[in-house]
C-alpha cells in the first residue's frame, strides 16, 4: 500500500518534470527559429558592404541595382517606407482610437457585440485583396477626383495600410479602455463630470499605455506590409515631393526584385541588407512599444 503510493508520487513527479521540459522545448522552438532567420538575414546581407559603405547604402539617393556600375542607395526606399507608414498612421489612429472609444464607452451593448467582430474581420481580409481593391477601384477614383497623373501613389498606399491597421489599433485600444475599472468611472461621475469629460480626462489617460501600444503595433504592421505597397504604391524609386507621388517602400522592393536577382550576387546581398534595415525598424517600433507599455504601466485596479 505504502509502496504503491510512493510509486504514484514518483510517477507524478516524473510526469511533472517531463511536462516542464516539453513546454520548454516548444517555447524555445520559436525563439530558435527567429534566431536562425536573423543569422541568415545578416549573413546574406552584410557582404554588400564590401561593395558600398553603410553611409552610401543608407543615404544614397539612387537605387539602380542592375545597371553598370550598379548603385545601391536605399534612401528613397527608407523615405517611402517612413512616409507611407506616417501617413497611414494619420489616417488609422483617429479612426481606430475613436472607434475604440465609441465601442467601449458610448455604444450600446448590442451594437458593440455586432460592430467589434466586424472591425476585427477587417484584419482577416487578405492583403492581396486589399491591394487589388486599391489598384482597381481606389486608384482610378483618386485620378479622377484629385486630377493627379497616377492613382498608384503614396496616398493610395497609406489609405490601404490605414484600413489594415485600424482593426489592430481599434481592438487593442478597446480592450485597454474597457479594462479601466468601473470605480474610476463612477468616481468621476460622482464628482460631477460629464460623460465627455470622464472619457477625455479619466478614461483616456488611464488607458494610454494600451492605446499607444496598439498604435505602435498597428504601425509596425503597416511598415512591414508588402503586398499592398507592391500593388498600389507605384514603385518609383524617388524621394516623394507630394503625397500623390509614386513611391517604392522597402518591402515592395525586396518582394519585386528578389525573384530575379542573381543568387549571391551584389543585388541579392543588397536586398537582404534592405531586409536588415527593415528588421531594425520593426525592432525599434517594438522596443518603443514595450518601453511605453512599461513606463506608463497602468497601476492599481486598471492594470491590463
Amino acid at each position, binding site marked *: 500500500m505504502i509502496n504503491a503510493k510512493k510509486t504514484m508520487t514518483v510517477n507524478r513527479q516524473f510526469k511533472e518534470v517531463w511536462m516542464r521540459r516539453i513546454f520548454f522545448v516548444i517555447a524555445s522552438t520559436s525563439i530558435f527559429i527567429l534566431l536562425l532567420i536573423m543569422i541568415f538575414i545578416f549573413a546574406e546581407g552584410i557582404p554588400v558592404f564590401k561593395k558600398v559603405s553603410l553611409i552610401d547604402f543608407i543615404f544614397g539617393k*539612387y537605387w*539602380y541595382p542592375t545597371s553598370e556600375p550598379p548603385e545601391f542607395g536605399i534612401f528613397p526606399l527608407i523615405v517611402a517606407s517612413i512616409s507611407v507608414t506616417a501617413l497611414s498612421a494619420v489616417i488609422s489612429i483617429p479612426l481606430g482610437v475613436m472607434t475604440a472609444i465609441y465601442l467601449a464607452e458610448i455604444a450600446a451593448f448590442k451594437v458593440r457585440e455586432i460592430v467589434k467582430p466586424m472591425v476585427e474581420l477587417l484584419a482577416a481580409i487578405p492583403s492581396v485583396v486589399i491591394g487589388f481593391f486599391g489598384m482597381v477601384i481606389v486608384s482610378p477614383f483618386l485620378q479622377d477626383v484629385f486630377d493627379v497623373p497616377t492613382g*498608384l501613389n503614396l496616398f493610395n498606399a497609406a489609405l490601404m495600410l490605414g484600413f489594415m491597421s485600424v482593426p489592430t489599433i481599434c481592438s487593442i485600444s478597446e480592450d485597454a479602455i474597457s479594462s479601466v475599472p468601473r470605480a474610476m468611472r463612477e468616481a468621476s461621475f460622482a464628482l460631477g463630470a460629464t460623460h465627455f469629460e470622464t472619457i477625455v480626462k479619466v478614461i483616456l489617460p488611464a488607458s494610454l499605455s494600451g492605446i499607444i501600444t496598439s498604435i505602435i503595433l498597428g504601425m509596425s504592421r503597416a511598415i512591414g506590409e508588402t503586398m499592398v505597397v*507592391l500593388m498600389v504604391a507605384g*514603385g518609383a524609386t524617388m524621394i516623394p515631393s507630394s503625397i500623390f*507621388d*509614386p513611391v517604392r517602400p522597402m518591402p515592395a522592393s525586396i518582394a519585386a526584385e528578389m525573384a530575379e536577382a542573381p*543568387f549571391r550576387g551584389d543585388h541579392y546581398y543588397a536586398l537582404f541588407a534592405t531586409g536588415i534595415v527593415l528588421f531594425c525598424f520593426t525592432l525599434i517600433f517594438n522596443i518603443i512599444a514595450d518601453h511605453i507599455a512599461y513606463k506608463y504601466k497602468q497601476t492599481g485596479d486598471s492594470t491590463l
Partner: protein
Amino acid sequence: MGKKTGFFIVAVFLASIFTTGFASAEKIIIKGSTTVLPIAQKCAEAYMLDKPDVKISISGGGSGNGIKAIIDETSDIGNSSRFIKGKEVKFAMDRGVYPVPFRVAYDCIVPVVHSSNNLENITLVQLRAIYKGAIKNWKELGGPDRTIVVISRDTSSGTYEVWHKKVMKKERVFPGALLLASNGAIVQAVSKNKNAVGYIGIGYLDSSVKALTVNGIKGSVKTTLSGIFPISRPLFMFTTGWPKGETLNFINFVLSPNGQSLVRSSGYVPLY
C-alpha cells in the same frame, strides 16, 4: 528484439514503396521566368496528356531563380527570358555543372498606352527620352497637355533588361518612373490611366490597351521573326548538362511543330 525486427520490416516496406513510386512515374521539375511560364505550362499540359505517367511540376520565380535552380540541380529545366550571366556561369563552374541553353521562342515587347490616346506611332528616340524623363508631357508628342505617367518593370525583370538594352541603350530609366512587378500589372495600370505609357510582352496584349508602332513598325510575329521590330528577344530553357530521358523528350516536344504551335497560342512568337 521483437520491436527491432518490427521496425526493420516497416523500414524495408516503406523503402520499397518509395522506390517503386519513383520508378513508375517520371518527374520533370521546371522553374524560372514568368515570361516563359505560359509556354512551359501549355507544353506540359499537352505532354502529360500524351504521356500520363510523366509528372511535370512548374513554378515561376523569375529567370534568376530558374538558372539558379538548374545550377544547384533542384530542377530539371530552368526557364529564362535572358541569357545566362557571367556571374552565374562562374557559379556553375564552381559547382562543376554545365548549363545548356535551348532557345524555345521569341518575345516581342510592345509599348502600350491608354485606349483613348490618339498617338499611333512612336520612335525609339522618343521612347528613350520619355523613359529618361526628358519628355514629360504628352503635348511634346502632339497630344493633350497632360503629364506622362511612365510605367516600367522592376529593374531586375527580364523584360526590363531587354527594354534597358534595346530602347534605353543602357541608359537609366529616371527615378520617377513607376516600377510594377508584372506584365499583368502594367496592362491593368495602363488600361486605368489615360496618362500612362508602359511596355509589355506581346503575349499580354489585349483590347484594354493600345499598342504603339515603333519607328513605324507594328510589333507582330512577322516583324519579330524577320528581325525588323526593334524590341524583341529570344526566350530560353536551360538544363544541367545535355538533357537525358524525359527532360530531353520534353525539350524536343517544345521545339517540335506541336510545341511551337502552343508557343504561338500562348501569345509568343514561335521559332519557325
